[in-house]
């Protein structure tokens, strides 16, 4: 991964409290897994930034190396890698995701 890609990813994570690296956009996801996570964040009314990795091949490959995680989507909250689709979905279902949001002082719909 070149430095400019790495810096770009880091700046997305630094400037957005909740970052979703995804295929497509929150309005038009291009992959079912990305849509799943995007919808959960919408339901929780979390203010998140969706970053479309399909817009750039270097970003699409770079994010995998950056997180040491082979799949997309990927969720970052306040700079911390939280997980991919399976983990975040599990956390959503068992209530852990709300706890993480609460602990990290992110606004979301509580009930």
């Amino acid at each position, binding site marked *: 991964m070149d430095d400019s890609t790495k810096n770009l990813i880091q700046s997305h994570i630094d400037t957005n409290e909740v970052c979703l690296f995804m295929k497509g956009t929150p309005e038009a996801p291009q992959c079912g897994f990305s849509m799943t996570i995007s919808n959960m964040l919408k339901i929780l009314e979390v203010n998140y930034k969706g970053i479309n990795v399909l817009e750039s091949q270097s970003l699409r490959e770079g994010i995998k190396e950056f997180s040491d995680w082979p799949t997309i989507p990927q969720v970052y909250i306040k700079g911390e890698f939280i997980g991919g689709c399976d*983990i975040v979905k599990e956390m959503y279902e068992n209530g852990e995701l709300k706890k993480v949001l609460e602990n990290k002082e992110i606004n979301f719909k509580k009930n």
Partner: protein
Amino acid sequence: MAMDLKEIETLIKEAISDAVIEIQDLAGDGNHYSATVTSKEFSGKSKIEQHKMVYNSLKGKMGNELHALAIKTKEQ
């Protein structure tokens, strides 16, 4: 490119020897799988670490030959 269900199971078994694995071919196309992996080796590890163990066992196939593998890990 598709991947055989048995092949996935074998790779996971090689890396996590006590793993109990349940795999489903979700779409019947050899491309969309769901795997539940249960192992003692997961204990004390975070979900991210547990999933990485499964990804690593697939030796780079995840995200390439293997487009979609939903993973669920359980500690025994």
